[in-house]
């Protein structure tokens, strides 16, 4: 009995047993749709998490000065440490694993535009920050090397800072005052969105950036004449280098500050990668895949039981087929293919539903941090694979039962 014949037979069964077939196929349909949807959604959650955590800067770590660790000094008054621009330059020259370095200074300050006053996080930055933080310009330009060299009083605003300070009336070219000093707005950052990780301070969207040199022009900080920066930003080429990069940064900075390379209290390093690495993202994907697969398996069991019933009801038919020349293996193939065709029809419809569902949801513009499914070709192949497995598994038992029917008994039945 050829394939075409068996497929025709399967469709005939579907037609004559519409409701029952539909209900059983629905199980497989829902199962494959679940596999596609849940796995895509898992990717979406993962991507959302990654995006949320990298909004402070992708693969970025930050070093803060601390105090010398207890076990590294006999003194009771543990030495307080600070970073200067000279340290930043030294680090920049010596790093190997780390791929980009920038110093950053910060203060909490009132910013004034006309009659409007706004307190926010003002940062002295280098040109590299725009790239290191991964912010794009919505308008104007970022802080340039020339701005630093000439200590220009220019500022770049985050969208939130712009909204609250300038409102609808001001844009590029507006003059604002920071700590009483006039600064000209030269650029506006594109919206960054909610950050799942940030350094102490405001989110990027609420920050005001000025050239690091202009920042130092406000006067000495912490009673020191040196150009003191609060943090050193260090970017990794690859997040897998994180531990090595930390060691490298501590070694270089430690040498400069004359503290031990292993003193984690003296040179404090943190990154969004700390949190991201703790998230059970891979486990979540596995759990979602298992959930979908289980749903599909239950659908497969539905088809299995329906086909077992069907074999029982059609013993007469099997007897007739054997009497007119069918081999056992023809019967086996017929029932296997019938089951498989049903599984495949339900499964393909389920994949279509899952893909459509993902597409529709992914087309929505949503607020930050609501995961949307991310559909990949591999997911469709996974679903097809699992579906094929389920189809084969639920086809074998009924087919085997069918092939064992005794024609002499069934043909006697009136």
């Amino acid at each position, binding site marked *: *009995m050829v394939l075409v014949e068996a497929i025709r037979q399967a469709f005939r069964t579907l037609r*004559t047993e519409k409701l029952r077939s539909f209900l059983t196929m629905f199980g497989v349909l829902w199962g494959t749709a679940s596999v596609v949807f849940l796995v895509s959604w898992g990717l979406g959650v993962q991507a959302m998490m990654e995006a949320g955590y990298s909004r402070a800067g992708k693969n970025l770590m930050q070093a803060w000065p601390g105090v010398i660790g207890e076990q590294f000094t006999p003194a009771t008054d543990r030495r307080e440490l600070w970073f200067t621009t000279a340290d930043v330059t030294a680090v920049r020259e010596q790093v190997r694993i780390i791929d980009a370095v920038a110093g950053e200074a910060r203060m909490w300050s009132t910013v004034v535009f006309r009659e409007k006053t706004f307190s926010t996080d003002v940062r002295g930055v280098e040109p590299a920050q725009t790239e290191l933080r991964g912010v794009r310009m919505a308008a104007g330009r970022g802080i340039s090397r020339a701005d630093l060299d000439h200590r220009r009083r220019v500022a770049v605003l985050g969208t939130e800072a712009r909204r609250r300070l300038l409102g609808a009336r001001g844009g590029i070219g507006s003059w604002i005052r920071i700590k009483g000093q006039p600064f000209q707005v030269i650029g506006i950052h594109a919206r960054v969105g909610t950050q799942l990780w940030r350094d102490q301070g405001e989110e990027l969207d609420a920050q005001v950036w000025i050239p690091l040199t202009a920042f130092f022009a406000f006067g000495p900080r912490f009673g020191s004449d040196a150009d003191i920066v609060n943090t050193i930003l260090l970017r990794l080429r690859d997040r897998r280098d994180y531990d090595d990069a930390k060691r490298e940064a501590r070694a270089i900075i430690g040498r400069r500050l004359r503290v031990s390379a292993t003193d984690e209290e003296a040179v404090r390093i943190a990154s969004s990668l700390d949190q991201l690495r703790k998230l059970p993202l891979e486990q979540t994907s596995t759990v979602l895949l298992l959930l979908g697969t289980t749903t599909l398996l239950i659908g497969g069991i539905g088809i299995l039981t329906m086909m077992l019933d069907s074999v029982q009801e059609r013993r007469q*038919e099997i007897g007739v*087929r054997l009497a007119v*020349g069918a*081999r*056992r*293996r023809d019967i086996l193939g017929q029932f296997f293919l019938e089951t498989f065709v049903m599984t495949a029809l339900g499964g393909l419809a389920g994949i279509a539903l899952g893909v459509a569902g993902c597409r529709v949801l992914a087309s929505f513009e949503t607020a930050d941090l609501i995961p949307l499914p991310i559909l990949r070709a591999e997911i469709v192949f996974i679903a097809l694979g699992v579906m094929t497995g389920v189809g084969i598994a639920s086809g074998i038992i009924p087919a085997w039962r069918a092939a064992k029917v005794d024609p002499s008994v069934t043909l006697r*039945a009136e």
Partner: protein
Amino acid sequence: MSDAVIALQGITKRYASGRVRVEALRGIDLVIRSGEMVAIMGPSGSGKTTLMEILGCLLQPSEGQYRFKGRPIHQIPPDGLAALRGTELGFVFQSFNLLPRLTALENVELPLSYRGVTARERHARAHEALLRVGLAERLRHLPSELSGGERQRVAIARALINRPSLILADEPTGNLDSRTGEEIMALLHTLHGEGNTVVLVTHDTRIGDQVERRVAIRDGRIETDTRSP
């Protein structure tokens, strides 16, 4: 005379259903030659259907030897038996045994579909077979849309489709009224007249008496084997 299509020697069949053992056949010796028409007669429970199932290779005898056209059946592997059923034998059952979801034409085509015959040729031959049994008008009907006599004609057409060496009919008129039964018998006689070998089971002596050779069985044994001149 012509060759033996069937040669049975000491055939017995025991059924073991639960603790009860039934001896349905107890030593059957029978030779049926090509072109013969034989009526197997006997009361209900005498073993007629069991004998037919053995002749049709649907059932293995417990003992004895069955040669079909000289070949011992027990030496033929399962696939060979399936092929033999499909090409050499044509079955007609008391309860018709048509597949309810297939049309008359498709039911008749069924044996050919296991022989790898193309759809086109299947159609043509099934059409021809239905024509022979006088059912050319009912090709697209489902069994449920046909009368009992018509269903049995479809079943006979299905039995004929492979031009078998032997037609086995187990009480073909058992589920029909007497007038329709006579029509079916007339059809079987016609087929016999055309040279087909026909073995027919009946417990109705009026039907049996029309047949040239009659084998009476009782309690699984052949009682008499008579031929009309």
